[in-house]
């Protein structure tokens, strides 16, 4: 797990130290900050990472900071911890995008599980992002006509319909489809359909 990093933001040094030690004992890289500002100022390595955030912080509330993070389009998964949580607070935290809400004192396994889950989520997000970039690149290597054919074919239209609509011969459509499959590196038509769905999902975002 050395290719990941856990950030802690807690103004209580004692808790920072404790949590940091616990996470380091399972070979995680840990960096702790006494305030959200310092966390934001710190350059982050491009590895799967997550943030353990205390609700009660001097100056700014942890929950407000969580909202701020989503405004900044910062996708780092956040685990919110608090010493005095209530339902209202946990609802607010989850709605603001926290992936988990733990009450101090927490069981070591709970926080470790949460951290692992968060790191896994971040890893998948990063992979997904990578996919989007790669598929996007492949997609943009298609000619406009090929993109049209791909969109219509993956929408379930038959070759002759596509040919009719685009005023092409059915043979030409077949050539375009083969070219699309090749450029998109799709092994089957089913995979091309998944790629098209994936692209449409993430390009809309």
């Amino acid at each position: 797990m050395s290719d990941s990093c856990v950030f802690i933001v807690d103004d209580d040094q004692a808790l920072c130290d404790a949590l940091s030690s616990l996470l380091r004992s399972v070979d995680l890289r840990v960096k702790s900050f006494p305030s959200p500002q310092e966390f934001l100022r710190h350059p982050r390595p491009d590895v799967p990472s997550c943030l353990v955030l205390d609700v009660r912080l001097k100056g700014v509330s942890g929950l407000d900071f969580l909202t701020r993070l989503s405004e900044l389009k910062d996708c780092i998964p956040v685990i919110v911890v608090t010493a005095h949580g209530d339902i209202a607070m946990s609802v607010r935290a989850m709605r603001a995008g926290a992936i988990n809400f733990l009450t101090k004192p927490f069981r070591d396994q709970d926080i470790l599980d949460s951290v692992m889950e968060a790191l896994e989520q971040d890893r998948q997000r990063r992979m997904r992002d990578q996919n989007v970039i790669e598929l996007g690149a492949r997609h943009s290597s298609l000619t406009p006509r090929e993109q049209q054919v791909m969109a219509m074919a993956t929408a379930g239209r038959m070759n002759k319909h596509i040919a009719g609509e685009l005023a092409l011969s059915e043979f030409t459509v077949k050539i375009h489809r083969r070219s699309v499959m090749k450029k998109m590196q799709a092994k089957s038509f089913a995979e091309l359909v998944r790629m098209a769905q994936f692209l449409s999902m993430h390009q809309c975002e």
Partner: protein
Amino acid sequence: MTDRSTDLVVISLVCAVMAAIFITDAVTSLDIAVAVLYVLVIMIAMRSFSAQGISLLTLACTCLTLVAFFISHDNLLCAAFARCLVSLVAIAIAGWLAVTTKQFSDRLQAQLKLLAQTHDAIIVCAIDGSISGWNLGAHTLYGWSEGEAKNRRCWELLNTRSSTPLPVIKDELLTNGYWEGELMETTRTGKEVIILSRWSLYKDSSGRPQAILASNNDITDARHAEEALHRSQTELAHVSRLTMLGELGTSIAHEVNQPLAAITTNAEAALRWLRRTEPDLSEAQAAMERVSSNARRASEVILRIRAWTRKSTPKYELLDIEAMLTDSLTLLDREIYHHRVNIIRYTEGRSLHVSGDPVQLQQVVINLIMNGIQAIESADGQTRDIHVRTRHMDLTIVVEIEDSGTGIGEENKAILFDAFFTTKENGMGIGLCICRSIIEAHGGKIWGECKGKQGATFSFTLPALKQESAA
């Protein structure tokens, strides 16, 4: 009855002597001023007759002298007339002197009676304590009559006890000629009484101590009332502390929970360091050290709260005001955070020491800051600051707590510290009242004012301890 019979004897004696003088004066023709002897009558009468009686008697003697003169002498112009005049002058002077003396002694008697009427128990005793004087007040207070008390040893009879040993008191009396203090004594019925006693030493002309005059007051009831008042004040302070603890519940829970969370996590981390295939002992050791320091931190918080909930009489100890303020602010940490209030502290940088009860003084500070926070909350303004200033001023230490809240209404200034005065919706109106009684019990003063455009400033003073005694 004895007085009455003595009076009768005196009256009959007066009448007999008067009659004898009159007969001698009227019947015999001795060439001496027999009537001068009426002076004797007046002197005899002086003891028992009133001032008015003496005047009448003098008049009677004058008349008898004149009557006797006219009976025994036809000729007015003779030596006998001169003798008669001498007698009259003598009678008049004797009469006037007797009346004035009588009036003076009457006044003295009246004053003595008044003195005897006093409720103060007045005891006169010799240096060794044997009682020679015992007034009505002493009789009423202790139950022994004058006759029973006389010649007995005062301090044995009354079982006198005191925080200062008796010989020390006597020494002080002999050096200063005066002593005042509280004594515990037992009355005839066995009742314990607290006595405020004032002793003065009576010396003879050569300066040798002769007797002790003790004027005693029973202050048992007053003392008990005072103690009851103190008790109820302590109880009230305790109740209000508990109320405040209730209000601060979440802050305190957080204060305890934080180190507990650190302890749990550190302990689990230590276990994980040890369970590794290659145990990391130095990491485990560091984690265990953090466990112990956090345990200490938690127990300190609990100790503070226990002190708060204890219902004990105030214990005065040497106290650093700054440390006391820090402790109070720690308890308020969460409230301050929750209401987004900034606490700004100003100090002179040197230690300020007072003698005081830490819990009670914390109670005052917390009460004032909580009020400040609530005032800021209801003002809902831009600035959310509370300034806490401490400084030395002459022989006192001043602590000022200034908020940027709603301030104090002009109409409320005078009744700010009154019991049951409150501007809060569900306030009891006892907080500031208790603050005042605590500060006054510490020998200080507390007041509230509006200094700037907005907000209120509450200040209190405490007598500063001298640096050498503080060191």
